[in-house]
């Protein structure tokens, strides 16, 4: 197309074309020969006629470019900016619109969000959109995916920016985790709590179904798409659900009939979801059929009892649950529970083994209700409550010790009693008013208790301080470090004013220091612990507290890399623990492990080994053979064996650690399995058992994926290790698969090179230079000394693509390298790397 026709030339060409297009070839050629057109026109005409004859080029743009169209619909908006966010990945598309993963590109902080583009033109919902959006943005609940922002795209599509949730749909989660019926009801209680919360803020969900309830890997429920169903409704029918958007099997009868949706709709859908999770089917129909069949079944009015399903729940307990769900699933909204809260309350009662309101209260039922208070104490079995009670126990224990010191004995006992009294009153007077009539959760109890310390104990600072310490420790165990630090700080300042109770102040300082460790304030923690130890009287009293404070300072010093100081504190703490006899054994066991760690950090591996053996014995003695702490010691011991080069012992140790963990947790892929598996993989690789090492890496990757997700460094690291192993074993195809997207994420220079070489090797030269360009200067330079594999790796891989002579030189240079993988590479992979050569690849 070097030169173009002008309009008059075209007119001529066009008329000749029309005339000749359907003429026989011979006629065309004869006519053209006589026409004596200008060369440009002649050429154009000939080419047009030739094209016309061959009829090449399809009639249909879509048929012409099917792959482009596929890619277009896949990645439609990927790369587009919506406000401050860049769309990075299409997560899903459905009746309501598309959901993308997006990253914040403005401001100082990175943020991953989900953006939902609503498939209704903005015009239809412009009036309500911003108003609804604000209502939704005010929903802040741990079980509700938060709405962060919203707006409209350049082409007028309204969108909502939401919290990005990584999780599985509720039904899949229950199946994959093989949850018991009770555990499933527990999840539904979380959902119901979230829905009740939203109702109090005047938002109805109207589309509660498995796909809208995600569960994260740590079991947190996240309810998605709150209020979206309403938002998508056409104007004027604000309270009715658009039938076209409904999933009939998840709909309430009033929705199917096009009547108004209310909070009762959510009650029905919660009941339906619970029923479905427990039985795997719909309460009115055996399997999903058409709308009319569903309506007909519902007209009968009564859901099928769960009776014969495989529930694993028997007798009256199952009948209770049937009654609760039947009440939630009534066709007539007015016959259902009047609120989600009341449904949740009954489900909660069932869960705690109490009688439910959905069944008539007989004499026994009444008796059951009478004992409700007591059951509350037994039934709220969360970690928080356990921790609270444990803290309470500590206070009593300290009171007991105090009795031996006559002067303060009675006073302390009185305080301990007062503490006990107060705690009992917190549980006893469980304030249901603040929680809207619901039984308070353990953490709400805790909050109520904290609030009351200020109000009721202003005159008794010593008692208040003890409670504050207990509460602070409890909050720390819940990882609420800021609040824990605030309470413990308050306890410290109360006790500083008192002056009379130095051990108590030391204890408060010790607990505050421990929170600081969690907050990564190591220097502050060291100072607090030093102050605490200085407070203790010179004579040898308060032995357990001393031992604990010294042990904590040991931890702090190790983390500050003050190993000498750590070793001193550790030794001193160990003596105190030993003097306590049996009561000191647990402390001693954990201390031995710490001291072993110190020795390992100092490079004294044989000492570390001896100490880990001692720690392992101590743990076994206290906890039996199958405890996860025993497994941890086995793991640590094996790690030292690995570092000592004793691979046979290390393999045995890691394998034993894996077994113990499996016995303890009852599953073979608990997160605690990660350390021994990755250790085993490394050891096997060093021992030259490459295929076994690969298998161990696969298991490691499965575990990290399951517990930490695809993005976690542990997952990426394990995959990078696997990829490297595969490359050096001469399996580039597999290596490339293992590598996938980790190169960019890990940002390892050597990985970039691995990628480049693998691509070269696989005859994909056009991509290799890109990876090569991302290498820093000098990464390819070959030095004279070849000390370690990590430095060697890039060069080894480059060597694979070089000439025969060059590769022979490499074989000589590598002859004495100690790493077994390098040896394998030199003997087996390098000589056979001919396929990458002789293609005249560009350099």
């Amino acid at each position, binding site marked *: *197309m070097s030169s*173009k*026709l*002008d*309009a008059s030339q*075209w*007119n001529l060409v*066009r008329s000749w*074309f*029309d005339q000749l*297009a359907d003429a026989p070839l011979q006629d065309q050629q004869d006519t053209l020969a006589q026409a004596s057109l200008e060369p440009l026109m002649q050429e*154009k005409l000939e*080419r*047009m*006629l*030739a*094209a*016309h004859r*061959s009829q*090449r*080029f399809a*009639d*249909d*743009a*879509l*048929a*012409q*470019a*099917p*792959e*482009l*169209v*596929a*890619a*277009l*619909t896949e990645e*439609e908006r990927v*790369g587009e*900016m919506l406000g401050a966010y860049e769309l990075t990945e299409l997560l899903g*598309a459905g009746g309501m619109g598309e959901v993308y993963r997006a990253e914040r590109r403005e401001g100082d902080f990175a943020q991953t969000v989900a953006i939902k583009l609503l*498939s209704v*033109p903005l015009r239809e919902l412009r009036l309500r959109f911003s108003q609804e959006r604000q209502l939704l943005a005010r929903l802040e609940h741990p079980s509700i995916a938060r709405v962060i922002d919203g707006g409209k795209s*350049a*082409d*007028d*599509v309204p969108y909502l920016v939401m919290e990005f949730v990584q999780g599985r749909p509720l039904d899949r989660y229950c199946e994959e985790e093989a949850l018991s019926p009770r555990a499933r009801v527990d999840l539904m209680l979380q959902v119901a709590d979230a829905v009740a919360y939203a109702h109090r803020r005047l938002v109805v969900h109207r589309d509660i179904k498995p796909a809208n309830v995600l569960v994260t890997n740590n079991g947190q429920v996240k309810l998605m798409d709150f209020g979206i169903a309403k938002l998508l409704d056409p104007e004027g029918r604000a309270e009715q659900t658009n039938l076209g958007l409904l999933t009939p099997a998840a709909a309430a009868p009033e929705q199917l009939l096009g009547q108004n949706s209310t909070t009762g709709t959510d009650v029905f859908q919660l009941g339906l979801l619970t029923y479905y999770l427990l039985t795997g089917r719909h309460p009115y129909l055996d399997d999903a059929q058409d709308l009319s069949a569903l309506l007909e079944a519902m007209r009968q009015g009564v859901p099928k009892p769960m009776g014969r399903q495989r529930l694993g729940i028997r007798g009256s307990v199952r009948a209770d649950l049937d009654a609760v769900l039947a009440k939630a699933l009534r066709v007539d909204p007015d016959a259902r529970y009047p609120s989600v809260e009341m449904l949740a309350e009954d489900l909660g009662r069932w869960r705690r083994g109490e009688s439910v309101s959905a069944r008539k209260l007989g004499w026994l039922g009444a008796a059951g209700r009478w004992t409700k208070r007591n059951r509350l104490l037994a039934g709220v079995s969360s970690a928080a409550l356990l921790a609270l009670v444990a803290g309470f126990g500590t206070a009593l224990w300290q009171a007991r010790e105090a009795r031996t010191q006559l002067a303060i004995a009675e006073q302390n006992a009185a305080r301990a009693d007062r503490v006990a009294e107060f705690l009992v009153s917190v549980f006893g007077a469980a304030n249901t008013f603040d929680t809207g009539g619901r039984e308070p959760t353990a953490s709400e109890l805790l909050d109520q208790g904290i609030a009351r310390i200020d109000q009721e104990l202003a005159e008794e600072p010593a008692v208040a301080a003890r409670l504050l310490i207990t509460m602070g420790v409890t909050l720390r165990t819940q990882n609420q470090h800021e609040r824990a630090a605030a309470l413990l700080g308050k306890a410290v300042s109360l006790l500083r004013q008192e002056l009379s109770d130095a051990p108590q102040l030391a204890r408060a300082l010790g607990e505050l220091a421990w929170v600081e460790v969690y907050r990564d304030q190591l220097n502050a923690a060291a100072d607090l612990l030093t102050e605490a130890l200085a407070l203790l009287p010179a004579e040898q009293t308060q032995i357990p507290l001393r031992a604990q404070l010294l042990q904590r300072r040991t931890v702090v010093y190790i983390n500050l890399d003050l190993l000498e100081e750590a070793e001193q504190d550790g030794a001193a703490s160990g003596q105190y623990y030993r003097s306590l006899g049996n009561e000191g054994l647990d402390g001693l066991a954990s201390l031995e492990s710490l001291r072993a760690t110190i020795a390992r950090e100092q490079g004294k591996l044989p000492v570390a080994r001896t100490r880990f053996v001692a720690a392992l014995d101590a743990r076994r003695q206290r906890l039996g053979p199958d405890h996860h702490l025993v497994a941890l010691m086995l793991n640590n011991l094996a790690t030292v064996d690995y570092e000592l080069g004793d691979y046979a012992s290390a393999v045995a140790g890691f394998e034993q650690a894996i077994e113990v963990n499996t016995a303890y947790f009852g599953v073979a892929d608990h997160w605690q399995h990660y350390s021994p598996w990755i250790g085993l993989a490394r050891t096997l690789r060093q021992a030259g058992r490459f295929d076994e090492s690969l298998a161990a890496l696969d298991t490691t990757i499965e575990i990290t994926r399951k517990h930490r997700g695809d993005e976690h460094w542990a997952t990426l690291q394990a995959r990078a290790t696997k990829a490297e192993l595969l490359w050096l074993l001469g399996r580039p195809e597999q290596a490339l698969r293992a*590598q996938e*997207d*980790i*190169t*960019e994420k890990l940002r390892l220079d050597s990985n*970039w090179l691995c*990628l480049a070489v693998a*691509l070269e090797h696989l005859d*994909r030269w056009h*991509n290799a230079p*890109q*990876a090569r*360009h*991302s290498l820093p200067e000098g990464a390819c330079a070959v030095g004279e000394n070849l000390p370690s594999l990590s430095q060697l790796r890039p060069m080894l891989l480059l060597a694979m693509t070089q000439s025969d002579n060059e590769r022979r030189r490499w074989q000589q240079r590598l002859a004495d390298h100690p790493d077994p993988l390098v040896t394998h590479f030199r003997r087996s992979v390098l000589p056979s790397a001919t396929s990458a050569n002789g293609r005249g690849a560009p350099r």
Partner: protein
Amino acid sequence: MSEENADLGAETAAFGAADPALSEQTYRELRLLARAQLRRQLKTGGTLNTTALVHEAYLKLGEGQHSWASPTHFYATMAKVMRHILIDAARRRARPKHGAGRPPVAMQELKVELTDASSEIVDLLAIDAALRELGKLEPRLERVAEMRFFGGLEVADVAEVLGVSTPTVKRDTAAARAFIAAELK
């Protein structure tokens, strides 16, 4: 504003000028609609077919309150929309992916480059360029080709939209097609 968005804006503006009857708002809605239809067609796994797509889009739109002179008029408009969508997509993907200031190419992008339809992109962009060229020489031919190729319109439909006879449309189609094919060489 990114380069891409700037492109889009210019094209939309040019489009509006070329067809004053069509507001930018309507154009955008049609764009959305076409994309939705494309996705649906792809999802159901059938072969891609512009004619079917455009007809479905019309039926879908029938639920709204757009007033088109006739279905045919709508199809012709839709052809323009389809052309814009496809050419936009082809352009976006033809652009070099790692200019200055961008992070190194991720593995994901490499994969895309390995598998995507670079020849299709080249074809589509060349077809579009040839159509523009043709439009300069004989505007009606560009419209005919656009309706046939990007809108899947039948000869009779094109004749109705343009107010010419069906033999004229047939001749125009043959000439346009041959012109484009010759340019593509």
